[in-house]
């Protein structure tokens, strides 16, 4: 009856997707913000390229850089706000009400997260592409069969790591500090602000062995064709991080539930 179990989470995905349409204005503001951010950063890059009088920065042309930026911003701004939701569930004990239902809390949240993230990333990429096409032109034609799984794994990896941070609120009073550090690392050494190639050699080396680049840099560099590794290697790298963090997440969840079982939250 595996398909029935899977169907539960599929149903959570669907219902959550329908709920997205209720947040139309929220979604509109987010999209306007994306346009603003992309516009400002694109102008910065245009200035950097023209004032430096260079056509290439670390192998990136201006167009490539702008398309890279579009993908990183589209992915980063598609992440649903898990922290508030999960912290609330843990702190006021709502997580307990999931324990006597035949559905897993982590799976339920994943279904909901994924629907929001996929919906937003699709819109962000479409809107971003139109904007960058008008500002820079030269649309790269990425291999979608490679790009889609890279984005899917990136979103899933983001869920698993952030969820692990969020569930530490079983023990930690305020997880916002942790989350802030995590999201800043994602921005900087994950490659959201600039491609990893721009960093000094030693920092690049560190960034490449950490998980953050799997979430942002890998899909974006693949989109613009700046990746140095074959697609399969990138997917395996994401997959291994995913397995690693899933094990950590399940461990934290199990300990948290044990604590809940004993202390009542």
């Amino acid at each position, binding site marked *: 009856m595996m398909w029935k179990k899977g*169907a539960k989470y599929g149903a*959570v995905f669907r219902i959550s997707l329908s709920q997205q349409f209720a*947040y139309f204005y929220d979604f509109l503001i987010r999209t306007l913000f994306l346009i603003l951010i992309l516009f400002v950063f694109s102008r910065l890059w245009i200035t950097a390229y023209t004032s430096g009088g260079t056509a290439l920065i670390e192998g990136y042309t201006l167009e490539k850089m702008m398309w890279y930026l579009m993908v990183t911003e589209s992915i980063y701004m598609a992440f649903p706000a898990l922290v508030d939701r999960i912290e609330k569930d843990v702190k006021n004990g709502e997580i307990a009400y999931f324990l*006597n*239902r035949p559905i897993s809390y982590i799976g339920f949240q994943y279904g909901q997260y994924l629907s929001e993230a996929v919906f937003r990333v699709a819109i962000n990429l479409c809107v971003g592409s139109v904007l960058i096409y008008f500002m820079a032109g030269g649309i790269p034609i990425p291999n979608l069969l490679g790009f889609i799984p890279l984005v899917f794994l990136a979103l899933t990896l983001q869920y698993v790591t952030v969820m692990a941070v969020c569930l530490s609120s079983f023990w930690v009073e305020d997880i916002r500090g942790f989350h802030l550090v995590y999201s800043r690392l994602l921005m900087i050494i994950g490659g959201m602000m600039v491609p990893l190639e721009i960093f000094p050699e030693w920092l690049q080396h560190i960034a490449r062995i950490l998980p953050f680049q799997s979430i942002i840099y890998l899909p974006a560099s693949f989109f613009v064709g700046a990746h140095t590794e074959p697609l399969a290697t990138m997917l395996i790298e994401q997959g291994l991080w995913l397995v690693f963090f899933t094990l950590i997440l399940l461990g934290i969840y199990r300990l948290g539930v044990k604590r*809940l*079982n004993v202390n009542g939250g």
Partner: protein
Amino acid sequence: MIEVNSLFKTFKVKQKEPGLYGSLYSLFRPKYQEKEAVSSLSFTIEQGEMVAFLGPNGAGKSTTIKMLTGILHPSGGEARVLGYIPWRERKQLSYRIGTVFGQKSQLWYHLPPSDTFELMARIYELKRGDYLQRRKKLIERFEIEPYLHTPVRKLSLGERMRCEIIAALLHRPEIIFLDEPTIGLDVVVKVKIREMIKELNREEGVSVFLTSHDAGDVEDLCKRAIVINHGRIILDQAVRDMKRNYLRYKVINVKLGKMPNTLSMAGLKILKQKERGLKLEIDTKMASIEEVLQSLIAENTVEDITIEDPSMEQVISYIYAGAGVSG
């Protein structure tokens, strides 16, 4: 159906000395105190019974419900619900029980209730045909057809609560745990919901385990009440007896046209008086409400009047004080 034997639960509560020094000290050497939430609880509930589980805040009601539904592990003792040990066989049990927590919604706020029902059907792995049939029946019984496709946020609290109950009943649970199902509802809706629960119990034999602060819920729905306080059962008796002994008091709030004449009648007690406003308590064993009202109207001009049941807290305090037991 539910068997509980010497069930107890203790929590460790962190203790802290006052002040900055205390905060620092507790950071490095935390001190804990054991707090007994439920102590040696024993009772049995048969199939089809409707039992009220009562007690003031902090009495151990939620802790008990959480243990019976498998969320909390007890510190000792035994419990079996439908033959399962709840905290060990939580998932299996979840397919056969339903829970409605009055202050915790299962419905998706921006979507119509029909979408939540659809999700529930998937979560509980219901067969399509069975689900549709069951849904139709519950929609008819709870009369929610007119707003089945209206987003939950546009529904009134009463309409929402009916939908909550349907969501908890779709998978045909054998026991339903209702935690404050009528909280915040107006009288008409409360009565309607109670009728529906009664009908369900009569027709399907669903057992009901109810906690409520509303004496009306208890009187109307349940044949038996278990009262707990400080984690111990202080009363386990038929509601009929309990009513005779403790729910016989009514509270009348009345606003008179002018300062009242003397009000004295056997079984009538003035709880509070503020100018023309009066709060009276009637012992219905000694004076009927009708008599009191007649005498009030005959001797005064009545501007406003309400009649209330004593709160569950009052009932429990009567039980504690032994009030009404002898007189």
